[in-house]
């Protein structure tokens, strides 16, 4: 038999939203990369909702873009409706959400992958990871790995020798789809499941668990009566996701979505058939997400609600299929049809694809370092739903970081780790690797304690520099961001230093805008803080101002209007960073730290935090344990210094 052996730098397993970002990052950093998928036709597939973005997820897409990822650019090319959510709220919770043309999204991403230098697409099921034991001395100081990855094997017998592997298997591992009593052993959308890799992972000591999620039915658009629904339009002026997209390029004709509601009749049918739901019948063992409950969950848990929203959203421009948002279900087909047909506008609906629940293998991400590398296996990284998250955006964000760090490892550079004060991506990954997660993890703005600083509007100012240093953002782009920053700073300073006197025309101007007259001189910045005034309104009494672009003005307004709040969060961040900077050596033996409480000791041994800051966020580790740990680390360092001196 001939041996089919291929050499490459990186293998990415899975070509969903995580896998695409991971593979593109590695290839763009000059590494030979192979991306594996069970079906080339399903690259960047959106098997559930037809949206990109949304609250807090829009932030993630912006951050991915600022770091040099692809998702933002791809949705800008393929969206069919776009909205900025929460526009009436503070800037920190403004969130972009776009309806995607699913097929087009997938096609465009495939095109990007196919044209990427150093990147090979391979349709094959990876069924085994190949590792070898590794010596402590061959590893960097902060590594505690006992094995190193050296390749993967496909089901058809090929061996790919490589330096790093990024697992982005999504919902495919040992996947099982449930539609009432009908159970199929497939991945999403009837695609082939990956049934072999799980065993290989277990053999390597990786702990797997089972999560589930679900999706609603798709309807034939011709069978829907839209006259009984509320039409929902996109924004008049569309704002692109990507900082690199010209805003003029996204002012397209948009399609509408539709809003309707369930009613008592719907709920009655569901209640009457609960015993046929695989979840309530106990057939499903996986844990589902609380934030996108099935319609049967909503009816059971919120029994007092007489109706629930249903969003009818197009799946694309070249299809009739409509997505029924809000009514995901694992009830049997006959119940589904009956239930959907009680909803106004869906009385005569025809189902194209059934709603179903899907169960899959994934990991408890506490096995990962903040770089998304497995603690125990050097060179093995992972991202996306495999890590116990949910959502396209969460997946893409992790895929990007996992890919970048696989590349950084091979290139011998320091890992890119964003902290909680730098990015939602930092919050996402820190939550995953530090906290106990019992359900697929979804991003939320309330999870970001410094959210006033982590806005979608300033993702470029926060992260371009990191993208540039990583090598995914070009010098020109980075320098443009620096220029923007300079313009903002200069304008803020000018507004603070320009004092407006109590001259007659100024008083008249203020009165005309319902604002109090001046008693003494006031800076333009101070005036801007009045709710009834804005940068634009003030142009009347500020004739000498430079002509600035909208994005610069936006930053100037936010910095001035919310200065007090922002300053407070910045002070908190300073405190936070001190603890993040205190590193915990990889070889620390917590059993030697006798004064730790037992629970804390066990948690620390399990999680092996990299910094005192991370340790402090592990549940069960008290402030007193942190004090003890600080004293121990001081002792450890002093001893090390003494040893060092002695050996000199």
């Amino acid at each position, binding site marked *: 038999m001939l041996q089919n052996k291929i050499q490459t730098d990186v293998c990415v397993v899975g070509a969903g939203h995580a896998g695409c970002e991971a593979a593109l990052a590695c290839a763009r950093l000059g590494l030979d990369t192979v991306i594996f998928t069970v079906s080339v036709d399903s690259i960047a597939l959106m098997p559930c909702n037809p949206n990109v973005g949304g609250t807090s997820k829009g932030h993630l897409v912006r951050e991915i873009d600022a770091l040099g990822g692809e998702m933002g650019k791809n949705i800008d090319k393929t969206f069919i409706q776009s909205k900025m959510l929460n526009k009436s709220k503070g800037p920190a919770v403004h969130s972009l959400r776009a309806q995607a043309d699913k097929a087009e999204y997938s096609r465009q991403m495939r095109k990007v992958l196919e044209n990427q230098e150093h990147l090979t697409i391979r349709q094959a099921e990876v069924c085994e990871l190949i590792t070898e034991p590794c010596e402590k001395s061959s590893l960097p100081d902060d590594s505690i790995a006992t094995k190193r990855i050296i390749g993967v094997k496909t089901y058809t017998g090929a061996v790919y020798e490589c330096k790093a592997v990024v697992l982005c298997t999504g919902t495919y591992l040992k996947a099982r789809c449930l539609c009432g009593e009908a159970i199929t052993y497939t991945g999403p959308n009837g695609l082939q499941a990956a049934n072999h890799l799980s065993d290989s992972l277990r053999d390597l000591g990786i702990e797997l668990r089972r999560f589930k999620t679900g999706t609603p039915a798709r309807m034939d658009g011709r069978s829907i009566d839209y006259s009984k629904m509320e039409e929902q339009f996109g924004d008049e002026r569309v704002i692109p996701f990507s900082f690199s997209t010209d805003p003029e390029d996204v002012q397209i004709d948009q399609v509408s979505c539709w*809003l309707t509601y369930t009613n008592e009749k719907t709920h009655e049918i569901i209640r009457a058939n609960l015993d046929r739901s695989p979840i309530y019948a106990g057939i499903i063992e996986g844990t589902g997400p609380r934030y*996108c409950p099935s319609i049967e969950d909503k009816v059971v848990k919120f029994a007092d609600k007489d109706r629930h929203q249903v969003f009818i959203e197009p799946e694309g421009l070249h299809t009739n299929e409509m997505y029924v948002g809000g009514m995901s279900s694992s009830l049997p087909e006959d119940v589904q049809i009956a239930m959907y047909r009680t909803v106004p506008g869906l009385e005569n609906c025809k189902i194209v694809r059934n709603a179903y629940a899907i169960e899959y293998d994934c990991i408890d991400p506490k096995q990962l370092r903040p770089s998304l590398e497995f603690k125990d296996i050097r060179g093995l990284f992972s991202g996306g739903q495999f890590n116990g998250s949910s959502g396209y955006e969460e997946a893409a964000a992790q895929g990007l970081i996992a890919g970048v760090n696989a590349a950084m490892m091979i290139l011998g550079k320091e890992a890119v780790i964003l902290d909680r004060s730098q990015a939602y991506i930092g919050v996402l990954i820190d939550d995953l690797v530090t906290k106990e997660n019992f359900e697929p993890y979804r991003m*939320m703005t309330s999870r970001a304690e410094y959210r006033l600083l982590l806005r979608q509007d300033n993702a470029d100012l926060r992260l371009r520099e990191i993208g540039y240093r990583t090598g995914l953002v070009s010098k020109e782009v980075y320098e443009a961001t620096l220029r923007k920053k300079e313009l903002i700073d200069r304008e803020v300073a000018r507004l603070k230093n320009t004092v407006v006197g109590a001259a007659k025309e100024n008083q008249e101007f203020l009165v005309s805008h319902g604002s109090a007259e001046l008693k003494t001189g006031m800076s333009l910045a101070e005036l801007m803080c009045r709710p009834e005034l804005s940068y634009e309104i003030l142009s009347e009494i500020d004739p000498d101002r430079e002509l600035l672009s909208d994005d610069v003005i936006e930053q100037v307004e936010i910095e001035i209007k919310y200065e007090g709040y922002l300053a407070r969060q910045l002070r908190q961040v300073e405190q936070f960073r001190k*603890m993040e900077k205190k590193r915990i050596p990889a070889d620390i033996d917590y059993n030697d730290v006798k004064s730790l409480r037992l629970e804390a000791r066990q948690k620390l041994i399990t999680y092996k935090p990299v910094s005192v800051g991370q340790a402090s966020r592990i549940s069960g580790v008290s402030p007193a344990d942190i*004090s*003890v740990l600080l004293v121990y680390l001081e002792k450890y360092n002093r001893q090390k210094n003494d040893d060092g001196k002695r050996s000199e």
Partner: protein
Amino acid sequence: MYSEKRETIAAIATAVSDAGIGIIRISGNDAIEIVDSVYRNARGEQTLKKYDSHTIHYGYIVEKDETVIDEVMISVMKAPKSYTMENTVEINCHGGMFIMRKILELVLQAGARTAEPGEFTKRAFLNGRIDLSEAEAVMDIIHAKNEFALKSSVSQLKGSVSDVIKEIRADIIHEVAFIEAALDDPEHFDLEAEGYDKMLLQKVKKVDKQIQNLIDSADDGKVLAEGIRTVIVGKPNVGKSSLLNILVGEERAIVTDIAGTTRDILEETVVIGGIMFRILDTAGIRSTRDAVEKIGVERAQKAVSEADLILYVVDSSVPFDENDRKVLEAIRGKRTIVLLNKSDLTSVISEETVHSFLADEDDLHISRMIKTSMKDKAGIQIFMDTVREMFFHGDISYHDEVYITNARHKEALEEAHNSLIQVEKSIEDQMPEDFYTIDMMSAYASLGKIIGEEVGEDLVNEIFGKFCMGK
């Protein structure tokens, strides 16, 4: 969440009494400035910053309006020549607990924060003052002091107070969850529709008022029961409640001639000779089938295990029995004063009888046996003198952690109050709703410190528990 603040810390460094001198220690970069703002020299001038290191000065501690609180001696030790190797100031004041607490509060208001248990020692070590060989000891001190503080922190709280705090927290997190649910799912929940801001403002003001009431009552000891934890034990109907009533000076416990009347635990804070005692009157300890009384007995046993001092009341007019043996068993190893009560009746029990009932003399740390009659208040003065004496001999003492915990509780209430003021301001300034929740969560976290609860996933759980989210 732990955050290392290089801030200035303060604590009462000595036990508290009316007679002695008390020391309040302040350590950190701003120690001198902070104390400077509350210290005046003999001529009423603000001079502390001018003093050299390792000098001691006479003067006064004053309130914001320059009202003199106490006459003090102040020592100044500049970094690095102090125990913590930081700027350190020690205020030697008159040891009354009210004065000391007042001074500590003034120092906290001036910008210090309460020291965590073992924090002076921790800083001394981290700053290199303590030798490497003592690292283990330092860690043990931090561990032990925190374990104690953890226990005392919650046990110091009166039940009703912790209920109020839980209620306030539930109110706060519910509103935060509503706002956050609306921000997360804006097509589902509409904040603007129903004048939510006005409703919220009222609610925040109501909650803030509750917190202010707690702060106000903290001063008169209603919130935070501190003092030497003293438990009155004895079999039923020997005069335990009568003793408490005499000490408190009013009829508080239900006193009847029917055995087993005090089914729950009554608790009073009593000042005897300038020393604060937190006295618990327990249900009589005896075998019982009555379910309610049984709970009382179990609680009594728990209280005994946490006590600093036991007052064992014996009815000297009736012989010892099985129930007395049970009591003796329960208080084994505890520092105890035995009150041979009902001395007005014919006595059948003497000191010798009690001793003969002890299997081993070391089982009980009996400091004194006193004959009393609650009916005539006989022997009460001797009893009071005895506890005073014991205190000054150091047989019983305050734990400094209790004081620190107490100050920390109040500090946390103040923090919560300040956060809610900020929320009110944000609402009045018509800031968007997402600004409110940040400070509301701070208030939630501050209140959690008092009852020993972290924030964790509370908000996410509340959002999903109360609001039907998601598509």
